[in-house]
């Protein structure tokens, strides 16, 4: 049966055949059906990456299969969510090595987009091996050493190499469920970049950046950096009594779509100003639970509905290290002067990182949310030109509109990627609206 489906940005919404996978046997059956299909986890990508005529929903393939409690090595099915892993393993002293800004993503989605977070590195750096069902139904086990080419193409490959069935991942040990967080107010772009470049030993870092501010305030930011708190770091007795558990605040919910006008330039400006000034001047340290540090947005269920029915998108670009210092101010200038105003904008620096087709590589990235409006896409095309000029690229998991050229020029291995996909999936079984838009199958 056709079901209305959209990913996080609520744009586009399509009618698709949604097949719910419950086990491997079914995967084999579904994969031999006719027509193009794509895997979908929790639909937390923003655009059209997880949309196709037929959608293989992996949400219900969510068994934990093995756990080595000495080494912290977990094997699980692809539909297991990061939230679930945290719930089960943090109380036992294990944590995710890399996590994106929401915990409601699946392991399959985390691998297919090779997600990144506040730490250095990306999710697949910690994937020891995985099993993937190819278009012909064969199940391939791959890792950095076994079927290595398939592994490197599947990480960040947006579901186009096959259906990830299960993965073995390395968790990291923690003493507490808390983070020692330091926030630092930075008055402009130079000072926040300077802070990133002289970071020292912090494991986690990211900056929220005010993309509305112009002139001498351009790029003013709040840097947030963190370290897993040791037991000795904990400050109050509740935390000390039960360091690996905490009682989070109750969740809020946005029960209905907001009207389209709710989010306008004025409210965005006010929010950004308040956020900046809320942070005390200079550096400030405190202990927060991991939900508050990693997933502040998850605190409000369905917050994407505040953008209304028209939906929204995220523009996330990365500039290589060499051109960041010249390119970022130019792009920021362009963004703040175009009057679109982004509610949330995040800046981060990636360190050394190997990538075949996944997004992270050494450089700076900036991510901005925009409501879908008539003039938005034309404007983003202009941003694209600048991003390309500085040798940058866009993140596929957030994209809903880039042109093929942007993909092929931005990702240096794009051609090889397409060739490999063709070789492994000659019938072009795995297609998303995105992969077709980007001419990946041609």
């Amino acid at each position: 049966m056709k079901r209305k489906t959209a990913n996080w940005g609520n744009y586009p919404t399509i009618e698709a055949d949604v097949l719910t996978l419950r086990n491997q046997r079914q995967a084999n059956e579904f994969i031999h059906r006719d027509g193009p299909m794509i895997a979908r986890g929790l639909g937390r990508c923003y655009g059209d990456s997880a949309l196709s005529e037929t959608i293989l929903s992996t949400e219900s393939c969510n068994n934990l299969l093995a756990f080595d409690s000495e080494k912290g090595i977990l094997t699980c099915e692809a539909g297991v969510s990061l939230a679930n892993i945290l719930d089960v393993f943090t109380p036992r002293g294990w944590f995710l090595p890399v996590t994106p800004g929401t915990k409601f993503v699946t392991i399959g989605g985390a691998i297919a987009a090779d997600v990144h977070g506040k730490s250095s590195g990306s999710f697949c750096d910690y994937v020891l091996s995985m099993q993937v069902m190819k278009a012909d139904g064969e199940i391939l086990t791959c890792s950095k050493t076994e079927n290595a080419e398939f592994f490197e193409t599947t990480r960040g490959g947006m579901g186009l190499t096959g259906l990830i069935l299960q993965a073995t991942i390395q968790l990291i040990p923690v003493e507490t469920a808390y983070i020692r967080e330091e926030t630092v107010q930075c008055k402009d772009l130079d000072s926040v970049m300077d802070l990133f470049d002289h970071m020292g030993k912090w494991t986690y870092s990211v900056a929220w950046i005010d993309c509305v501010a112009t002139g001498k305030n351009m790029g003013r930011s709040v840097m947030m950096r963190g370290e897993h708190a040791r037991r000795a770091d904990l400050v109050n007795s509740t935390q000390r009594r039960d360091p690996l558990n905490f009682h989070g605040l109750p969740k809020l919910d946005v029960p209905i779509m907001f009207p389209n006008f709710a989010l306008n330039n004025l409210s965005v400006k006010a929010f950004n100003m308040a956020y900046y000034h809320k942070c005390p001047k200079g550096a400030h340290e405190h202990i927060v639970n991991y939900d508050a540090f990693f997933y502040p947005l998850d605190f409000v269920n369905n917050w994407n509905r505040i953008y209304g029915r028209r939906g929204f998108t995220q523009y996330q670009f990365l500039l290589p290290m060499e051109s960041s210092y010249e390119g970022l101010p130019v792009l920021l200038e362009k963004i703040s002067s175009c009057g679109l105003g982004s509610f949330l904008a995040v800046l981060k620096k990636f360190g050394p990182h190997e990538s075949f087709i996944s997004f992270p590589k050494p450089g700076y990235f900036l991510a901005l949310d925009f409501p879908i409006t008539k003039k938005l896409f034309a404007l983003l095309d202009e941003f694209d030109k600048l991003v390309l000029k500085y040798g940058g690229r866009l993140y596929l998991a957030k994209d809903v509109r880039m042109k093929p050229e942007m993909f092929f020029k931005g990702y240096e291995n794009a051609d090889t990627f397409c060739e490999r996909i063709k070789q492994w999936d000659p019938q072009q079984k795995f297609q998303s609206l995105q992969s077709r838009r980007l001419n990946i199958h041609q």
Partner: protein
Amino acid sequence: MQTALILGAGSDLARALARRFATASYRLILAEPDTSLIEDLAKDLEIRSQAPVETVAFDALKPETHQAFYDSLSVKPDVVLCVFGYMGDQLKAETDSAERLRVMNVNYTGAVSILEVIATDFAARKAGTLIGISSCAGDRGRQSNYIYGSAKAGFTAYLSGLRNRLFHHGVHVMTVKPGFMRTAMTEGLDLPEILTAMPDRAAEIIFHAFTRKRNVIYLLWMWKWIMMMVRNVPECVFKRMKM
């Protein structure tokens, strides 16, 4: 450590319930006609509960095996969840006697057969809880699913009588009327979102009601009122409706 037995462990609701009980540190026994379908779930639950999980073959349609099935369990459960069910196809059931017998035999005969065996043990042990997953469809017969509905109505009446009997032995019986749930049973049906519970949410509500020893529950509060209205439509009007 307490033990929970799940009858019909292969369904989405059963899986969610099993995980909820595993999280509360219950040791689990999973029963299902084809145990190969629940091996991965058993591994999952072992990791979550950090306790061994047993899988046992069980078929509601073979009442003659039920006593032996229960006797063979290495540990006798403290809580039993009777989750299995078979909705079948109403139109098919109207003409195909095998289909209608199956609907009646899974939902009513099979359920009564196994629960009577367990009830006898619980009554003797003077402890335990039985949870039966019945259905709102049993609250009043409607043309669109009255074969299934009447079997569930019978099951609901059975649970009510059993609750009455076992109360005097210190055993609790809870009846659950789910309303709509998004599971394999309802896949492909266009269910209204606000009246539909996801299995995880359903399991949470059932677990909570279990700890509070509730007798009869609807999962979502709206269903209580909807079914009250459905029950109160006069028969002379009801028979003319298309439901």
